């Protein structure tokens, strides 16, 4: 029994014991803005993303499931980017978006510019009176789809579901829970200006609209 004591402390040490390099190259020592404007080749992204899609494809049975999987992989990125991007804002604009419009603007401008180097092309509210909870973010030419050609039999598939997941993560993190899906809307005819045009459909949960309406009255 005598050896139990020291043994125990050793194991509890292990539980909390991540090792760190002595030269300070850890996430705690390096400035969070170090890679803010760093660039990598688009090829490196394209290769990674295509492997990610191929890998996901082998583990699913249908297009919907594949899109769901890509969405789920993007989600944690959105959650983290919300904090990261707000932290990098100047102090007076550092507050979290408090209205649907402010949130969507944040996504269209800040999130898009950071990830893709330009703003999203358009922001729309659903004109259908039955779906006041739906908003659309339009990207004429999603960067993530640049080197992806979807086979004819899978024409429903839009790999920007990954980006939809990122958007969903941002919405959820900002306490505006929503479902976000990616849809191809570009015409397939020849001469079409934006064949890869994609709409990200943001559908907020009903309580968000209720809250927004209440806030609007006060």
């Amino acid at each position, binding site marked *: 029994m005598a050896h139990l004591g020291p043994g125990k402390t050793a194991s509890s040490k292990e539980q909390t014991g*991540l090792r760190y*390099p002595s030269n300070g190259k850890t996430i705690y020592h390096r400035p969070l803005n170090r890679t803010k404007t760093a660039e990598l080749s688009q090829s490196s992204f394209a290769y990674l993303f295509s492997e990610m899609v191929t890998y996901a494809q082998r583990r699913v049975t249908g297009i919907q499931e594949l899109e769901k999987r890509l969405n789920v992989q993007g989600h*944690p990125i959105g959650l983290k980017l919300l904090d990261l991007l707000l932290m990098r804002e100047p102090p007076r604009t550092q507050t979290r978006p408090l209205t649907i419009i402010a949130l969507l603007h944040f996504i269209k401008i800040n999130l898009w510019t950071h990830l893709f*180097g330009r703003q999203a092309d358009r922001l729309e509210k659903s004109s259908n009176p039955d779906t006041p909870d739906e908003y659309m973010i339009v990207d004429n030419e999603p960067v993530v789809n640049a080197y992806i050609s979807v086979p004819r039999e899978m024409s429903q598939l839009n790999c920007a579901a990954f980006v939809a997941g990122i958007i969903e993560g941002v919405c959820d993190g900002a306490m505006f829970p929503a479902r976000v899906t990616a849809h191809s809307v570009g015409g397939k005819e020849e001469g079409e200006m934006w064949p890869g045009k994609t709409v990200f459909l943001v559908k907020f949960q009903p309580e968000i609209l209720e809250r927004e309406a209440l806030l609007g009255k006060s």
Partner: protein
Amino acid sequence: MASSKASRLGEEYVWRTRMDKVNAELVVLTYGAMVAQLCKDFDSDYVKVNQQLDKMGYNIGLRLIEDYLAKSNTFKRCSNFRETAEMIAKVGFKIFLNITPTITNWTSDGKQFSLVFDENPFADFVELPDDGRAQDELWYSNILCGVLRGALEMVQMQVEAKFVSDVLRGNDTTEMRISLIRYIDDELPPEDD
């Protein structure tokens, strides 16, 4: 010295003018999401995660080599493995990841060397899970080993590449060891007249 300086400028030029670029954090976060997904899918069996990353890298390498040959200004075949190492570190890594790892620790037969990564863009924002195993078993950037293996195979070199230390594991350096196994002889495809 002069010639090596000129060639360094060459790679800088290729990186600046010929490569389309994206925000580094998009790539880094995407890679992180991928590794996290693998850890989940394989139930934190990190040995399997390493294998899967290597396999994915291999698939990338098979295709990346063409991109490399097209973008870099390298028209001639490397005359020996040392030259190959130079091209990997100074051209390959530079134009795809904008880093230049250091080549070191050659064996005397000239068949094994190490790449030491001063910077590893993939490792930004990363901390391995504190489960007492990840730091001993997971090679977070293992995809890079697969990329080298795949790409070199396409130019008739069979190599073995593996990480031997990683800053994420608490080591002071990130080092990859690359060994030449053999040069693959040109084989004519069967029934090719």
